[in-house]
């Protein structure tokens, strides 16, 4: 057939149009759903609005932490790029907001590397006013509301307890669908433990935007829900007294805990030294950070819940209970307790070289007589001491949310496993006076007192009194939670309590400083050896070689409302340092009527 130009051209045109139809079919039918989704994303933008976080109050409603809104200046690089020359932009930002546009941000804008950038955080009043006054010439800029956490000066008495907030990591966001990268979440302390109560629900706004990011119409809006306010069990007045007392004592490091023995609510908990919570949250300068982390008194460590120290003699009331309950001794049993005690070639000294004579258990507590406990402890054996220690909850996280670390309580298995050695009698002797391998947290120390004063109840410790549930519009309070009751005979308990009374009021008591407290009270001193006797001979010149000073306490003696622990790290003497500190705390607390536990 002859080549026909006309039909050739017609065919070419026809084929070319077939390509158009094919392409149309591909885009609209085959890939239609795909483009429809892109198109939706293109013009509907979801804006998240951060909810205000719940406030934190002390038990009486003293404000400790709250939220304020702040503004960040944000820019969309691709819009900015289209509307300004970099030189003009630099002048505008400098004049209106005192921003020096750095190389990095210039580059991001020029190359449109990011969808949005933050040009300035936490705008001041003048910046915000300038933004509104000149908004007509600010294309591609907007203000983002960012909640900021404010901690009141009172919060600085307990920074470790309150903790701080920050932005979540990517992993946290993936795990928790309720938060976004811009949600403030608790990072430690109360802020973290009760984050689910404090954190509200983010609001969402679906906005129709044009290609320039301008909002055209709000499609739907979900208001953010404010987080619930939490009321700590802490009494900030008591906390303040403790802080001031500790500070004026001149000691550098330690912990004080006061709890209500009937509910096991924590009324005060000081880890000393403290730090400025607000500064810590807003960001420290490098020198400040280095000063905090390099400080040998470890301000960042929460000594109440994570410091582990040998308890020394404050452990004796527990050993006493064990011995009495197991029938090793009766309240009347008198034992000759001399200046030292020997097993084979090993000699174990009494802290008072004069010895104690024939004494019963109450007197042994009064004098803190080591040789008495060596003998009782040996008769009792490590297994029973271990059993009672565990019964009291020492070494057990009674409230895993707030107890970060708990005691290491040694026994035969522990020693075999950790030290690959059998248990010796000498170990039992050491354990009887709270020395050796035993190490407890200051909070564990409250576990010795609480069951003794409340009749054997092991309760779940609480750090909050309750919270205000915004949804139900009611206050949800936390009731005391009994974990178990240790069966103990009343007269055994009375004996131990009386022994602790004698510590304060007895003729040979080791904590006479407490006599000055206006209400009858009781306690037990403890001086825990940090290094061996020989090392200590080098004299207590170096701070970190000195003994730890302990005092556990309860008051009033007849109807205890408080149970407390004072721990002074390397404080040298329980009777000489820790007890007077507790005395000063209780004196002020009762004088100022702070103890109003209901």
């Amino acid at each position, binding site marked *: 057939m002859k080549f*026909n130009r006309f039909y050739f051209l017609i065919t070419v*045109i*026809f084929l070319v149009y077939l390509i158009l139809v094919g392409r149309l079919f591909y*885009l609209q039918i085959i890939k239609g759903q795909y483009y429809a989704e892109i*198109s939706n994303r293109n013009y509907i933008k979801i804006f998240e609005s951060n909810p205000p976080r719940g406030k934190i109050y002390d038990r009486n409603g003293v404000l400790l932490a709250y939220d304020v809104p702040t503004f960040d200046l944000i820019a969309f690089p691709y819009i900015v790029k289209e509307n300004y020359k970099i030189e003009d932009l630099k002048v505008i930002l400098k004049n209106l907001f005192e921003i020096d546009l750095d190389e990095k941000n210039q580059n991001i804008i020029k190359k449109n590397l990011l969808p949005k950038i933050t040009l300035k955080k936490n705008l001041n009043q003048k910046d915000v006013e300038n933004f509104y006054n000149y908004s007509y010439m600010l294309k591609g800029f907007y203000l983002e509301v960012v909640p900021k956490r404010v901690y009141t000066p009172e919060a600085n008495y307990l920074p470790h307890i309150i903790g701080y907030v920050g932005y979540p990591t990517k992993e946290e966001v993936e795990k928790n669908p309720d938060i976004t990268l811009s949600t403030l979440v608790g990072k430690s302390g109360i802020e973290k433990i009760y984050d689910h109560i404090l954190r509200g629900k983010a609001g969402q706004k679906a906005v129709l935007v044009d290609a320039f990011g301008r909002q055209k119409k709000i499609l739907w809006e979900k208001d953010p829900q404010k987080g619930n306010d939490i009321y700590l069990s802490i009494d900030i007045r008591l906390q303040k007294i403790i802080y001031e007392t500790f500070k004026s004592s001149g000691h550098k490091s330690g912990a004080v805990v006061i709890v209500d023995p009937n509910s096991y609510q924590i009324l005060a908990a000081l880890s000393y030294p403290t730090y400025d919570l607000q500064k810590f949250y807003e960001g420290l300068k490098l020198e400040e950070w280095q000063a905090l982390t390099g400080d040998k008194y470890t301000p960042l460590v929460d000594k109440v819940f994570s410091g582990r120290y040998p308890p020394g003699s404050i452990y004796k009331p527990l050993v006493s209970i064990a011995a009495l309950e197991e029938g090793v001794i009766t309240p009347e049993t008198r034992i000759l307790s001399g200046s030292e005690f020997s097993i084979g070639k090993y000699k174990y000294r009494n802290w008072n070289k004069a010895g104690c004579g024939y004494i019963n258990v109450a007197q042994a507590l009064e004098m803190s007589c080591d040789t008495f406990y060596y003998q009782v402890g040996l008769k009792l054996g490590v297994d029973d001491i271990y059993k009672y220690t565990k019964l009291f909850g020492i070494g057990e996280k009674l409230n895993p949310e707030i107890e970060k670390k708990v005691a290491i309580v040694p026994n035969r298995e522990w020693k075999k496993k950790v030290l690959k050695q059998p248990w010796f009698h000498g170990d039992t002797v050491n354990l009887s006076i709270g020395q050796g391998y035993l190490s407890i947290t200051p909070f564990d120390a409250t576990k010795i007192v609480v069951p003794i004063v409340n009749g054997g109840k092991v309760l779940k410790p609480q750090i909050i009194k309750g919270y205000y549930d915004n949804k139900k519009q009611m206050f949800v309070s936390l009731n005391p939670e009994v974990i178990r009751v240790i069966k103990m005979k009343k007269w055994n308990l009375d004996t131990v309590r009386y022994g602790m009374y004698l510590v304060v009021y007895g003729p040979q008591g080791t904590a006479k400083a407490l006599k000055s407290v206006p209400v009858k009270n009781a306690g037990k001193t403890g001086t825990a050896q940090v290094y061996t006797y020989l090392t200590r001979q080098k004299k207590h010149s170096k701070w970190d070689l000195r003994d730890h000073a302990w005092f556990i306490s309860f008051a009033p003696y007849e109807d205890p409302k408080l149970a407390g622990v004072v721990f002074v790290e390397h404080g040298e003497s329980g009777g000489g340092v820790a007890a007077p500190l507790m005395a000063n705390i209780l004196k002020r607390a009762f004088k100022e009527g702070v103890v109003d536990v209901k």
Partner: protein
Amino acid sequence: MKELIFEKLKKIDVIVFFIALFLIIFSIFNIYSASYHEFSNLYIKQIIFAVFSFFIILTTTFLFDYRWLSSVSFYLYGLGIFLLVLVKFIGTTILGAKRWINLGFFQLQPSEVMKSIMIFFSANYISSSKLPLSFKDFLKLMLFSSIPFVLIYTQPDLGSGIMLLLPVFAMVFLAGFKLRYIIGFALVLVLISPLVWTHLKDYQKNRIIAILNPEADPKGTAYHIIQSKIAIGSGMLTGKGYLQGSQSKYYFLPEQHTDFIFATIGEEWGFVVSFLLVSLYLVLSLRIFFIGRQLKDMFGKFICYGVASLIAFQSFINIAMNLAIAPVVGVPLPFLSYGGTALIMFSFLIGLVLNISYINSKQSFQLYTENIGDY
């Protein structure tokens, strides 16, 4: 009188007439949709142009004789060149291009006028030459075409320049110009294309690069292409509905009432209507080709070939550009894109085709297709 008009109407080609009429009316709706959210009155202007175009079609069809163009085509060519030169001096600059002459009530775009003139001029030149076209005649015609091409290309308006040349090439091809010359010419074009590339403006290069890899620079040149693809694709089978196109309504799609009107249509009307529209352009152009093929009069025949290929190629390039398979060159969609000069010129060309078929049918020509060979 009424009877007379009816009689006359019966004699014109109804397919061409009604497709053109439909496209003109459809354009008003779509320009309204593409621009009403900007509170613009573009669609009112388009209505005025549409009414005017309709009269142009009717008057050109019935009160005109296309053969007159044959005698004035050289002067018209001169007038077109004059306007193109004039635009260099007194032209209005819009978006960096000097393409318009402000007549107060109307922005005249000489390149659109020149496209039509080039068709009469070539048709006249070919029909008065000995066919098949000699190489010398071909070169002369190329010379005549290259003058307006260069003037338009430097406006700059590469798209209109190409659209000026393509119908001429089609006419030359159908005029039986030796195939080996055409192939040789094409080879020369290929050989000099690197040279052309180096002379292209950066934005023109970017547009060509963009079509090869649009995702590489989504906010830059390829932005149009991506947004157009999204707009059309998201229309799916039946579209988002008239006035419901989100891509176009929220400014994602630039130049949506001019070069990208097809994307708006694809988004709002979906595959069914888009397919129909593409088919209408094909049918319109093929119909005009066949009208030309039936004619014995060489001048009329080549005018038809020119008009048909202009409609075919320009529609194809515009739609292909909307579908992201051709580079973004400023080529409006015939009848549908906003723009007065283009609409008036296309209406005139349609009127001319109708006039050609009307006059030739009035004289009740026999069909001599076999005798006149391939031309």
